[in-house]
């Protein structure tokens, strides 16, 4: 018997990474700005996105959303109230969205063409662990954190916060009753992802939204066609 070491050097998520590269090229070619929204369940991704879609539409932007959940199309129905095209992705037990699911759902999405969109939002499955490993080809990964979750969330889930391009604090209207330590939260986010852009928002009062919308517009213009 001969023992032999075979070097493989293969990325375990290579298939996903390759698909994500393809998606990223497609997005760039059409000029659509794609954002991947990640957070724990219950942070308020859907409420924040509802408001974002509505406001962007009101300003004449062409927007659409894909929304991932294990089961139900409740979120898609909520988001569709904004008037934007919305498609639900049910993962049936899988804890994250991957590039293949995105590709498939873009492929046969009746009436939606990437080159006719300004923004495509992908609301990931509520989970602060697994979605961090799966590139969806997005231009911007947005991590959301609510004031009810505790200021140390970034320290507990460093991978997700470290891989994000922007952070959104939600439910700021509850900051006082929850005893939210704003300074500690900002410090913890910065400790894990130094210099990241942070938005302090409330989908209820609309606080922080203007700044967020300006950021989106600036990013979309910045990537060019």
């Amino acid at each position, binding site marked *: *018997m*001969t*023992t*032999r*070491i*075979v*070097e*493989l*050097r*293969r*990325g*375990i*998520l290579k*298939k996903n990474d390759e698909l994500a590269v393809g998606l990223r090229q497609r997005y760039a070619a059409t000029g659509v700005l794609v954002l991947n929204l990640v957070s724990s369940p219950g942070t308020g991704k859907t409420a924040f996105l509802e408001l974002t879609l509505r406001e962007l539409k009101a300003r004449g932007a062409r927007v659409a959303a894909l929304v991932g959940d294990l089961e139900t199309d409740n979120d898609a129905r909520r988001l569709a109230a904004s008037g934007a095209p919305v498609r639900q992705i049910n993962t049936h037990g*899988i*804890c*994250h969205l991957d590039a293949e699911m995105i590709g498939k759902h873009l492929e046969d999405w009746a009436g939606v063409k990437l080159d006719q969109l300004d923004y495509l939002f992908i609301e990931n499955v509520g*989970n602060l*662990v*697994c979605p*961090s*490993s799966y590139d969806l080809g997005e231009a911007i990964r947005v991590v959301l954190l609510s004031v009810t979750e505790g200021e140390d969330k970034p*320290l507990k889930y*460093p*991978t*997700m916060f*470290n*891989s994000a391009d922007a952070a959104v604090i939600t439910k700021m209207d509850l900051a006082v009753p929850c005893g939210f330590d704003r300074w500690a939260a900002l410090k913890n986010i*910065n*400790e*894990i*992802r*130094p*210099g990241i852009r942070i938005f302090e928002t409330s989908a209820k009062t609309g606080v922080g939204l203007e700044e967020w919308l300006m950021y989106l517009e600036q990013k979309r213009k910045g990537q060019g066609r």
Partner: protein
Amino acid sequence: MHELSIISSVVDTVTESLAAYPGAQVKEVRLRVGALASVVRESLEFCYGIATEGTPLEGSRLVVNELPVVMHCVPCSADVTLEGVQSFRCPRCGEPCSDLRQGRELEIEAIEIEEADEVKK
């Protein structure tokens, strides 16, 4: 949380690569896992036994080589190794670092196989 699907992907990749070595037995599979890869060594090991059952990898060892986070520190103009993942600051000068050089790896490094010697005629 998704360690089982990761290990299943490892089994598929290794099985495919065995096509070049007919009759070989897998002894060991070595992974490189960065501290920011979001996977837990114990979970990988637990899933490995289950996922390899009935495959050419059954009975082989899983070796997980864990890699610390390495950042590039601009003021020090050097790559620096972080002690953990709780603070992304240079351990030398204390400045925040955002240029990640190592830590997200999730890859199959190598496999160790045993090949039957050719029978000489």
